[in-house]
Structure formats: structure tokens, C-alpha cells
């Protein structure tokens, strides 16, 4: 990630509007005073002088300080890339020109009004730019989160370098209170690290040798020596930033209508303004009045509010999410979320911790040590979490050489030790290999009813024993499920585990339905079946569950540690907590209802304001104030989303 040390673009924009605003009013206020004096005391200033004075002052307001708007607006008119400046530019230029023609005495002089329109427009833009800046506060904080300097150990010496100079493999020191410069692995020291800014986790996380740390998180109390594993664009923070920025560009479907209207808005309003002017001229024979009404129509129409409605709310919503470790990847998910009726969960790693541990060992006529040695030897070659549980329980004691190792997906493993064929796995595997479980069946059931997974180990078709493994439920899973049920969602667990174990876990956390013994590749099919009865949000860990996440209407991918499967979900939870699912649902709903409110307001404003202007009820300056207020209202309303508790 590059660091821009100069001022952010937003601040420059606000500053430039403020400068224009101040100068516009410095020149416009005297115009207003002169116009008032003229109206009430016609005699004090000779009309010719005041006309020239107003023209000169207004020239500076419209064509010097308003030049950016005039240029971009008129250019838009000529190139057919109409923009939101086009109407204001045309309105003010026409109003100004009347001041010149007025010397011939045929029409009313609107040049002072031109200055006032531009001054109010500039004021509106300034307030709007500030409000927009507030809308992106959280995201800007995220951008500025990265550390600037790192203390690297080179040839035994500590050297301070810029973060951009770090290389993968460098070892750096992080003292208490310092930011960890980039992603890495602790090689020496221990400490606790505050990862809240990246994961939303409020409690500090303990870090020991071998643990991964995330760049931009803050070291709390010990000294850590960390070896860099990822730098620059590959870091966790860079990924998050990229994801959030990309999401801003995605469209929320409801915005499409607004976009369509905006794209034809300017030419349509131009047409309406011309017709209005012509009508008023013909029917009143008063060209001055007709011009005033025409200008009011030009400046009151506000495509800006329509255009700002969705992006500002999306910005505030995704910023709020990012702060809590909820990354909204697709704007569409926000809209779909409110239709979701069913929330389906993967079990391992989603509801449970995903770190199974051996709880019981039952040896069937052999020594327990022998059973575990054989089991661990074979399981050592597998990466499956259940396998790892057995291997870590055994701790490397008495491991034997294994030949012809094979993984039987969703069922177990197999290998040859010496001359004996070893098979470890579930009932289905035993049945397939014609191994009789017999009297042990009752024992297996017992384990399963406790929510444990029983693995059967057999050697040359004789059962050596059972190994029960349990994966503890995450502390907050129960709370999350309770809240989901209270909100009326149907909850379903989809797992490859056997029916009884799955039911026991489901009961523990409070899930309505269980679909068990599902092979990994069939999970997405099960989601598809659920979709027949309503929209489904699927919550999974993103690594094995990618197809199911894609199949579901809203895929919520759980982050695990520093590896998040970014491509898989519509929403990514950085912290692997189910409470995040509830927050993500609430945040999506709140953001979407804010978008709807904004769009409604923007539509309603135009629907009411344009006819009023056409009817000639509104003075052009009042019209301009209304227009500026409508944009400001939309952006301010988006900022109010923050008040919502999620």
C-alpha cells in the first residue's frame, strides 16, 4: 500500500469550496444590499451605476469563483456527458446575460440573482462536501491505519526503516504500544495484541512464538520479534481496504432506477425549462417574468440528491461494518438480506471452534497406547481437523511408517503399517470395507449423543477401538442463534458429520433443523433445496464452503485468523464469531432502509419542487436554496445511520 503524505483529496476539496464560498459571499452581500436599496429607495444610487456595479461583482462570483462549475457544466452540455453542474451553469449564465441585455431595457435584470444562485450553490457544495467527508470517516481511518516505520534487525543491529522497505523474511522488533508494521509470525517474545481495529474483536489476543500477527494491530505489553510473511499489497489490511473500496463501486439494484432517471434528468429538465419559459412568455407577454420562472426550473431540479442517495448510505454502512469486522463486498447483498428467511450454517469452524480435541479413547481388546500409535501414524498424513486432533493428542509418541496412504473423502483414511491394513473412519467406511462394528455400536451412539464424533479404527478388519473427538461450540454461538430466532429466522445446520452428533450440537446452540451426513460437494445442493422455501443466507468458513456460499442468496464467509477467503462471500466476517452474522444482517437491513429513505426523499423533492417552479411560485434564489438543501439532507440522513444500534 502506498502512503500519501500530502493532504487527502477530500480535505482539499472542502478547502477549495470554502475559499470559493467566502469570496462568493464577500462579493454577493454588497450586491444584495444594493438590490434592496434600489427596491426601496430608488433615488440614492443612479440605476446605471448600480447595474454596472452588480454586473462587475456578479462576474467575479459566477465566472471566477464559480468557474469550475460553469466550465464543467457547459462542457457537459456540449459533449452530451450531462452532469449535475449543467443545469446550474446554464441557469446562472442565462441569468447573468440578462444583466447585459438589460441595458437595452427590454428585459429584467437577473445578474444579481445569478451571483446569489452561485453563492448559495457554493455554500451547498461546501456543506455537502463536509458531510460526505464525514460519511467516509471510518473508511479513511482504515486507509490511514497502516504503520509508517518499522524497526528491522539487520546484521544484529536494530535499524529503523520505512514500512515500504520491508522484505518478506525480515525480522523486526515491536515494542509495547507500537503498531505491528506488517503481517508476520512471532519468532521470539510474547505479548498480547489489540487486533480490534482490523477484526472488531474487543479483547486483546495473546501472541506467542509461532503465532501469526496482523500488520497495523497494536502490541500491548511485551516485546515481540516478528518475521515478515506478507508485505505491501499482500497484507491482510491491504486486502480489507481493497475489498471495501471495491464494494463502493458495486451497485445496489434499487439504485438502477435512480441512475436511469439521472442519466436523462438533465435533458428532460432542459426541455421542461424551455417549455415553461415559452409558455410564460406567450401567456403573460412578460419576458422578464418568463425568464425568472425558467431559471427557477433549471436550478431547482436536483439530480444530485438522487445520485447521492445510495452511495453515501452505502459508504456509511460499510464503514460502520469495517469498524466491527464486517466487510460488505457486494452492494446487492444489502438489498437481498431483507428477503432472507432461512439462515443455514456449516458446523465445523462456524458454529464450533473448528479445533476438535480427543475426549475419549476406547480400546477394544488392545492396549490404548497401541491403538493411539496406529491411529496417529496414519492420521498424521491427513490435513483433516479430526486427524490433527488425534495427532496432537498422541504428541508424536511411537509413530510408525505408513505406506499406501489414502484419503476417502467424507469418510476417513486408510494406510498400510508393516503388513497390516489400517482403516480409520466413520460407519460408512466400515460398511464399505465390510468391517463389522457389532457390539461397539451402542458405545458409538453414546459418544454421538454427547455431540462427539466417534472414529472407528480397524486393523486387518478387526476393530482396535474408538476415538471420540469433540469440537467445542464457540462461546457466543448460543447467543447469536438466540437472537436470530428471536428475529424470526429459520435456522438450519448443514454438516458432513453424522446425524446424532449434529443433533446434539444443534440442540446445544439452539438450531431448528439439521441436515447431516452431507458430503462436502453436496452442501450447495442442500442450499439449493432450502431455497425452494425462501431466500437463504449461508454462513460458512469460506475455504471448503465456497460453492454453498455462492449458491446461497447471501453468502457470509467467516474469517479464520489471518486467512480470509475473500472471493467466496458477499459479506466477509473478519472475526469468526456468529454474533457477527446477526450484526451483518442488522447492518444490511439498516443500510438498505436508509437507502430507501434517501431515494424516497430525493424523488419526492423533485416531484414536488419542479411543478412548483414551473407554476412560477418560487423565486430563482429560493429554488436554488431548496436544491442545495435537498442534497445536504440526503447526505446528512446517510450520516444518521450511525445512530442505529447494530
Amino acid at each position, binding site marked *: 500500500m*502506498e502512503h500519501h503524505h500530502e493532504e487527502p*483529496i477530500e480535505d482539499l*476539496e472542502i478547502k477549495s469550496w470554502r475559499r470559493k464560498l467566502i469570496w462568493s459571499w464577500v462579493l454577493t452581500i454588497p450586491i444584495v444590499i444594493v438590490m434592496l436599496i434600489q427596491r426601496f429607495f430608488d433615488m440614492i444610487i443612479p440605476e446605471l451605476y448600480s447595474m454596472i456595479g452588480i454586473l462587475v461583482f456578479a462576474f467575479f462570483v459566477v465566472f471566477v469563483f464559480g468557474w*469550475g462549475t460553469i*466550465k*464543467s457544466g457547459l*462542457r*457537459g452540455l456540449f*459533449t452530451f*456527458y*450531462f*452532469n*449535475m*453542474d449543467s443545469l446550474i451553469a446554464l441557469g446562472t449564465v442565462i441569468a447573468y446575460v440578462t444583466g447585459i441585455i438589460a441595458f437595452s431595457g427590454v428585459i429584467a435584470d437577473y445578474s444579481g440573482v445569478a451571483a446569489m444562485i452561485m453563492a448559495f450553490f457554493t455554500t451547498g*457544495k461546501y456543506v455537502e*462536501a463536509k458531510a*460526505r467527508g464525514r*460519511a*467516509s470517516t471510518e*473508511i479513511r481511518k482504515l486507509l490511514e491505519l497502516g504503520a509508517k516505520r518499522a524497526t528491522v534487525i539487520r546484521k544484529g543491529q536494530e535499524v529503523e526503516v520505512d514500512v515500504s522497505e520491508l522484505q518478506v523474511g525480515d525480522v523486526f522488533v515491536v515494542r509495547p504500544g507500537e503498531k505491528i508494521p506488517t503481517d508476520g509470525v512471532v519468532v521470539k517474545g510474547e505479548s498480547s495484541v489489540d487486533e480490534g481495529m482490523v477484526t472488531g474483536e474487543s479483547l486483546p489476543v495473546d501472541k506467542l512464538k509461532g503465532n501469526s500477527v496482523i500488520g497495523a494491530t497494536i502490541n500491548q505489553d511485551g516485546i515481540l520479534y516478528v518475521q515478515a510473511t506478507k508485505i505491501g499489497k499482500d497484507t491482510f489490511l491491504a486486502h480489507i481496504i*481493497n475489498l471495501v*473500496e*471495491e464494494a*463502493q*463501486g*458495486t*451497485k445496489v439494484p434499487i439504485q438502477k432506477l435512480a*441512475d436511469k432517471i*439521472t*442519466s436523462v434528468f438533465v435533458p428532460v429538465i432542459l426541455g421542461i425549462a424551455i417549455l415553461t419559459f415559452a409558455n410564460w412568455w406567450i401567456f403573460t407577454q412578460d419576458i422578464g417574468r418568463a425568464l425568472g420562472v425558467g431559471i427557477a426550473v433549471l436550478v431547482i431540479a436536483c*439530480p*444530485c440528491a*438522487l*445520485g*447521492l442517495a445510495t*452511495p*453515501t448510505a*452505502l*459508504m456509511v454502512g460499510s464503514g460502520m461494518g469495517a469498524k466491527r469486522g464486517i466487510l460488505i463486498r457486494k452492494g446487492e447483498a444489502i438489498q437481498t438480506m431483507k428477503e432472507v428467511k432461512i439462515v443455514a450454517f456449516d458446523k465445523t469452524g462456524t458454529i464450533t471452534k473448528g479445533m476438535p480435541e480427543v475426549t475419549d479413547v476406547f480400546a477394544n481388546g488392545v492396549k490404548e497406547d497401541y491403538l493411539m500409535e496406529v491411529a496417529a501414524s496414519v492420521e498424521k498424513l491427513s490435513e483433516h481437523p479430526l486427524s490433527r486432533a488425534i495427532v496432537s493428542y498422541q504428541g508424536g509418541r511411537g509413530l510408525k511408517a505408513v505406506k499406501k496412504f489414502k484419503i476417502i473423502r467424507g469418510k476417513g483414511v486408510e494406510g498400510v503399517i508393516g503388513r497390516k491394513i489400517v482403516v480409520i473412519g466413520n460407519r460408512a467406511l466400515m460398511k464399505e470395507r465390510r468391517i463389522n462394528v457389532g457390539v461397539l455400536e451402542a458405545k458409538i451412539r453414546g459418544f454421538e449423543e454427547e455431540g462427539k464424533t466417534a472414529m472407528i479404527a480397524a486393523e486387518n478388519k478387526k476393530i482396535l477401538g474408538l476415538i471420540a473427538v469433540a469440537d467445542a461450540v464457540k462461546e457466543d454461538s448460543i447467543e447469536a442463534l438466540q437472537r436470530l430466532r428471536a428475529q424470526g429466522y429459520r435456522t438450519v445446520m448443514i454438516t458432513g458429520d453424522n446425524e446424532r452428533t449434529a443433533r446434539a450440537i444443534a440442540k446445544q446452540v439452539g438450531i431448528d433443523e439439521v441436515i447431516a451426513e452431507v458430503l462436502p460437494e453436496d452442501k450447495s445442493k442442500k442450499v439449493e433445496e432450502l431455497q425452494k422455501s425462501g431466500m437463504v443466507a449461508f454462513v460458512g468458513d469460506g475455504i471448503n464452503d465456497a460453492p454453498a456460499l455462492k449458491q446461497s442468496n447471501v453468502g457470509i464467509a467467516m474469517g479464520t485468523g489471518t486467512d480470509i477467503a475473500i472471493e467466496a462471500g458477499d459479506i466477509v466476517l473478519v472475526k469468526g464469531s456468529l454474533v457477527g452474522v446477526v450484526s451483518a444482517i442488522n447492518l444490511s437491513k439498516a443500510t438498505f432502509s436508509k437507502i430507501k429513505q434517501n431515494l424516497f426523499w430525493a424523488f419526492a423533492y423533485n416531484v414536488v419542487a419542479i411543478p412548483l417552479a414551473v407554476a412560477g411560485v418560487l423565486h430563482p434564489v429560493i429554488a436554488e436554496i431548496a436544491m442545495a438543501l435537498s442534497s445536504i439532507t440526503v447526505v446528512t440522513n446517510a450520516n444518521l445511520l450511525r445512530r442505529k444500534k447494530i
Partner: protein
Amino acid sequence: MKMKLTIQGMHCASCGNNIERSLKKIPGVKDASVSMMTKKGFIEVEKEIPRGEIEKAISRAGNYKLIELEKE
């Protein structure tokens, strides 16, 4: 392939839409999305597009400037 653009000069939502429209006209660009809020744009391209073409498309839509171009 995706390319990420940082664009200066957008001041209202129609700016983003106009730039999108103009970017989509470049042959080889499959999709474009521009956000005035983040000043960022993303284009989905079939083949690599020279920086000059992107700059041209951006300034065709108005007074905007490409300040950064990253390939992903």
C-alpha cells in the same frame, strides 16, 4: 483481469456514472464501476489497456484526471 483506477475531480454522483459510461466504450473493457465517494474505479478487461486510452476516456467524460493505475 481487473484494473483499479484512482480518479481526481469527481464532485457529484453523475460524474461517476459519466466516467463509467465513457470507460465502457473502450474496446476490451467488459465492465466498469466508479465511485465518487472513494474516488476509485474498477474495470474488468479482456486484455491489457494502455494507460493513455484510459486517461482519454476519463477526460472525455469531463474535467477528471487519472492519478493512479494498478493491475490486479
